[in-house]
Structures are given as structure tokens and as C-alpha cells.
């Protein structure tokens, strides 16, 4: 048993801390105040690309090795620690950062070599900030992902997509969108497929950037697909992949890998609230009050437990051990902890919190999404209950 971080990881975290403090937090506060996502041509993004960020984890084809960049993080545990630190500074900015983002894991796991080359290749050594995104949620179906209605119909050597997606992160600026669709709405999960839809494909449009309560630094965008034709080769993994129930599992794999990350983000947001609350209490000379101390103690304790649950899920993943329950548990608990920590922080600020200009007030709004994205708290509990008490699916 060991509860430490090695030196190399510590250095990575120090770097993240510097960038977080100097760049991420300030730009996140501006986006929050202006109530709009960071513009895609913001020099901040250019700077990230210049400094070697925004890259894919994909090593490139063997015949064409990737340009030398820094080591990718070796383990899930390390990734969790790093994303916790980023979220500490600004979780919205973290998602706004360029890169292949949410669908990368799916493409790595299931994409053909040609698809990796075509869709991840441009992220090997990007000439400009590039984004990609994953679109599952629809106005009529979120948690019940098997009920999506976006439809795909084969037409010769093309697929024709029709439907509407909503709340999709970075959609309007993405080079391509991995769209989850069904070839037969009556057949539920078995009939689901994922398609690469490139930006500017005719029929892809109606982009609407939503107004959100928090996490304003990145765009959550709704769009429509109207007779949108994509080549047959854009089916993720190729036809062979979609035998039996692999289609739905494709999507769920993204979500599964993402849960501990959302947990880590939650801990990061909560930690920021704790530090701000502690500073506030110290400046106002409130630390002599046991009610104040008790709130701080509760925040710190719950965050500690949340972080350990999160790291446990990552540690299991690193050992290739089953972690479904632990991954869901980390997300369900840590998201609640972030909400509780920011809410206790608001109590500690008192009416200062209600002014709307304190960082904790922003964190209080940002944190809420952690219990919604990538499977709500209720959905995580359903997943856990399926394993712990064999809760039936219906």
C-alpha cells in the first residue's frame, strides 16, 4: 500500500498549477463575466498549441512516427491527478482547451488505422487549435441513451443522418463530431452506430450555443442533421465492429473511462472552494468560530474521501481490474462532494456569496454540472445497484 506521488508527477502538477494560476483561472473568470465561451481564435489557445498541448495520445502510424512531444501520461491515476489540478483552476477552461477530447478514447479503442490517421492525425502536431467532440445527447434522450432517435440510413456507399443533438461540448468549433445514431429506433442499443461527421458537411447545421448556469468558458451546443450524407468509411470501426451489441458499448466505453475524470474534476472544483473559503475566513478573522471551522473541516474531509474513491477507480483501471462499481461510485460521490463543498463555502461567505462576484459563487454554479454530465448521479447509482443487488434494467 502506498499513498504518494512520484517526482515526475509532482513536476507535472507544478506546471499545471502555474498554467492554471496564470492563464486558466483569469480567462475562465472573464468568460464567466461575459457569459460567452472563449472565442476559438483567442491567443490563449494559440499559446497552448505552441507550448505542445492540444495533442492526441495516439502515437501515429508506425511508418510515420509522431513528432517528438512530451511524454503522454502513463497511467489513469496520473491523468486523474492532472485533471483534478486543471479543474481546480477552471474546469470550464479545461474542457475548452483544444484537443481530440471526449471521443479520442473511442477512436483509439475502436477506430480503424485509416480513421485514426484521418481523424487523430491532425492532432499529432496541430498547425492551429483543433477540437473534436462526441454527440450522444438529444432533446428527447439523455440518461436513457438507448432511446436516441438520430437516424442513420445506408444509401449506396454513404450514410444519411437525420436528427438533433444538444448540449454537445465544442461542437461548433470541432473539426469533426462523432455522432451517435441508430439504424433502427425500435431495436435500442443493438442498432446504435457512431459516425464521423466533418464540420461543413452539407446537412450539418443549426448550431446554437446554449446559455448555461456555469462552465461558460466552453460552448455547449445544439445542432441538427438534415439528410446529412457521410461516406460509408465514416462509420466508426467499419461494419465489422457492429456485430451484436457492440454499437452501444462503443458509446458506453467513452462514458466509463470518463467517470473517474469527472470525479477528479469535482474534487478539483471542491478544493478550489475550500482554499477560497479558508482564505476568506482568515482575512475576516473568522477562524476562531467553531461553526466556521466545522464547515471547513467537513469540506476538507469529504474532499479527501472523494479523491481517494476517485484514485481507487483509476488505480483499478491501471491494473486492468474491473472498476465499474468503483468508477460510478467515485463520480456519484465526488460530484455530490463538490456541490456540498461549494455550498458550504457560500454559507461561509454569507451575504458576500450572494453578491455574485466571488469565485466561490462561480464554483457553486460550475460544480452542479458534475452530477449531470456523463451519467447523472442517479444513473451512477443504477449502475452500481446492477452490480451490488442485481437491479434489473427495467
Amino acid at each position, binding site marked *: 500500500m502506498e499513498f504518494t506521488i512520484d517526482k515526475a508527477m509532482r513536476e507535472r502538477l507544478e506546471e499545471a498549477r502555474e498554467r492554471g494560476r496564470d492563464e486558466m483561472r483569469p480567462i475562465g473568470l472573464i468568460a464567466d463575466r461575459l457569459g460567452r465561451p472563449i472565442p476559438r481564435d483567442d491567443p490563449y489557445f494559440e499559446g497552448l498549441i505552441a507550448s505542445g498541448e492540444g495533442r492526441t495520445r495516439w502515437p501515429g502510424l508506425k511508418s510515420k512516427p509522431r513528432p517528438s512531444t512530451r511524454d503522454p501520461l502513463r497511467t489513469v491515476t496520473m491523468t486523474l491527478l492532472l485533471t483534478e489540478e486543471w479543474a481546480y483552476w477552471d474546469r470550464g477552461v479545461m474542457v475548452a482547451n483544444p484537443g481530440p477530447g471526449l471521443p479520442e478514447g473511442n477512436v483509439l479503442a475502436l477506430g480503424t488505422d485509416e480513421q485514426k490517421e484521418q481523424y487523430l492525425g491532425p492532432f499529432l502536431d496541430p498547425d492551429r487549435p483543433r477540437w473534436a467532440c462526441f454527440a450522444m445527447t438529444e432533446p428527447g434522450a439523455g440518461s436513457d441513451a438507448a432511446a436516441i432517435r438520430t437516424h442513420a440510413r445506408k444509401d449506396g456507399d454513404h450514410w444519411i443522418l437525420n436528427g438533433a443533438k444538444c448540449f454537445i461540448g465544442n461542437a461548433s468549433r470541432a473539426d469533426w463530431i462523432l455522432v451517435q445514431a441508430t439504424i433502427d429506433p425500435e431495436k435500442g442499443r443493438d442498432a446504435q452506430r457512431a459516425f464521423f461527421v466533418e464540420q461543413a458537411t452539407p446537412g450539418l447545421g443549426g448550431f446554437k450555443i446554449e446559455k448555461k448556469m456555469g462552465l461558460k468558458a466552453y460552448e455547449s451546443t445544439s445542432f441538427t442533421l438534415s439528410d446529412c450524407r457521410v461516406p460509408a468509411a465514416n462509420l466508426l470501426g467499419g461494419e465489422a465492429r457492429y456485430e451484436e451489441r457492440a454499437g452501444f458499448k462503443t458509446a458506453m466505453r467513452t462514458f466509463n473511462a470518463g467517470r473517474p475524470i469527472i470525479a477528479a474534476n469535482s474534487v478539483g472544483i471542491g478544493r478550489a472552494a475550500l482554499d477560497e473559503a479558508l482564505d476568506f475566513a482568515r482575512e475576516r478573522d473568522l477562524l476562531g468560530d467553531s461553526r466556521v471551522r466545522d464547515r471547513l473541516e467537513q469540506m476538507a474531509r469529504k474532499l*479527501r474521501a472523494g479523491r481517494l474513491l476517485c484514485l481507487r477507480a483509476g488505480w483499478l483501471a491501471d491494473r486492468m481490474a474491473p472498476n465499474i462499481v468503483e468508477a460510478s461510485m467515485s463520480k*456519484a460521490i465526488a460530484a455530490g462532494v463538490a456541490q456540498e463543498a461549494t455550498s458550504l463555502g457560500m454559507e461561509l461567505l454569507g451575504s458576500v456569496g450572494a453578491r455574485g462576484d466571488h469565485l466561490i459563487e462561480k464554483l457553486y454554479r460550475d460544480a452542479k454540472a458534475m452530477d449531470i454530465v456523463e451519467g447523472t448521479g442517479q444513473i451512477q447509482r443504477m449502475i452500481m445497484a446492477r452490480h451490488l443487488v442485481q437491479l434489473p434494467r427495467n
Partner: protein
Amino acid sequence: MFDLQLDEELELLVETARSFAREELSPRLREAESARGPDPGVCASFAEIGLAALELPEACGGAGLGALARVLVNEELAAGDVGAAVALDPLGPALYPLLELGGETALKELALPLLAREGARAVLVAAADAELEVGADAVSGAVPWVPADRVDLLVVLDSEGAVALQSGIETEPLRGAGLRAAGASALRLQNAPIVARWRGREQAGRALARARLYLASLLVGVLRQTCEFTRDYALQRVAFGRPIAHHQALAFLLVDMHAAVDGARLLLHEAAWNADRGRANAALSATAFIEAIDASRFVGPNGVQILGGHGFMQDYPVEKYMRESRALGLLLGGVDAAREEAGRALCDAGAPVALSELEIV
């Protein structure tokens, strides 16, 4: 790096404690409660496996293991019968002031004889839980409750140090809210002679930290058992045409109970691991204790709730788990003293607050 894998020695230890608890403790749980003590046969076989000397240094004939070993063993024993777990360890958390403040001499003079004496019990009392006047040579006053029917050694711990007493301790039997298998008494002390007095803030702090880990591990054990028992029951019991576990309100409650125990256990293991490395861990231990108590307030009563009316009846163990987990959290100054300590530690911290050793510091 972060690693939760136990080494083989500890795995084996856990397995030993687990099978003992399963075979010897849980089947006799009500018996031990009404007899105010485990069966002599159980005590004898416990003595044979030598778990009481787990943390004694090798120089004193012990296994020389640390806090992590203790919390792992305690969880298993407490999952079997937490009352018996308290009764079976003659030293209990009273060991820690001897270990941290008294050193080898104190261990040899005060602790070792208890291991040889059948049914002997050492008891640790936090000065804040009692009304005691500690004089130059003797202690007088009262302790409202200790989970014991006899006291061979009483150690009174405060933030400055500890005193040890062996005589002049009158026990008055109580019914006890829980842990009856360990006994329940009020203590009256009239000029009880002090046989040893140790001073040292730092060592006293470490002793209290270790004692909190001891209690937290008993809590984690009994709460885990509550979760397991109610899960099995909820899969058997049918209402409205399906197992009650398959009604979402109960399914979610069960997973939340489970998560509460997992969180408390991880905090406990981190604190114990730090204690074994001699790292400052007063705040971490206090935190683990608070979280275990927090979990007990949630898990204990919900354990009864899941069994409905049956849970309220003593034919099932869940009402016992509820009472005993509640009582355990009242020892050593309970949650308030621990929150005071952990909260004060935070006041001294600068941002970013180090949540653990994992923090960049």
C-alpha cells in the same frame, strides 16, 4: 505512487481475522451480548492466534506490526461482533499511550502482564470524557461509561500526557447502550494511586491519533457488516412483487451506504499508512474517525430501516449494529473533539490545503 495492494503478510492476517470472526464471533453474537462477554472457548482460541500482541514491539514478544495491520484486523473482528472485538483485546487503545509515551519499560511492566491474565482489560479514557481530578500521586472522580466490566489498567489521556492506574477503581455495572459483550460500567475513583505518569504533547497527540484509528476501524467493520447483511436481506425479502432491493429507493440507499463505508475505509487506510511512517497524522486520524462516525449516523439507522419492523426486533442483528456503531463514536471525546482537532489543523494550513500526502507540498 498511489497503490492500494496489501502485501502478503497483511493479506494473510486479514484472512486469519476474517475466518475467526466468521466462525467464532458472528454465530455467538447475541450470546456474547447477554453474557456480557465472549464464551471462554472463544477467548481461548483468540489468545491462540495471537492477535492481541499485534502491535507490541518484537522486544516485548509482539509481532511489531503497525497501525495498518491493526485497522485491517479490527475491521474483520468488528464485522463479526464488535462487542466481542473490544472484549477480546485486553490492551485495546490503552496500548497507545504506553507505546508512545511509556516506552518499552511501561509495556513490559503494565501491558505484558495483562496478556497473561485471563479476562484482563486495559481501558483508555480521554480526560475530556470524565470528571477526574488528577493529583500528584492519585486520581479521584468519575467516568460515566467505559465498555468494560473490569478494569485492570486505566489510562487517562489528555493533550499533555497520560497517567496509569491499577487500583482504587470501582466499577458500577451499567446496562450500556451497546458493546455489552465487552461489558459496560461507570467508574468511580477514590484516590486511585498513579502508578505511572508520562508527559509529552507530541507523543500524547500520536497516542490519541492511533486510538482514533482503532475506533474508526471498529466502526468501519460493523458498518460494513450492516451493509452486507441488509444487502442480502433486501435480495430475499419480497414486497410489491419483487425483492425490495429492486425498488430503486432501496437500491440507491444500499449503494450509498456501501459508498459511505468505502470512503471511510479509504480515509482510515491512508491515515494508518501515514501513522506507520511516523508522519504527522493527528488531523488525518481525526478525519478518519469523524468520517466513520458520519457514516455510522447514516448506515446504522438505515440498516434497521431496510428490514422494516423486523429490523426493530432483536431476532436480527441490525438493531445491535445501530446501537453499537452509535456508542463507539462517543468514545475519546467523540466527533466534537475530533472536529476541533481537524478544524484547528486546517486553520494553520495555507492554500492550497494539502488534502493528503498526495498533495504537492
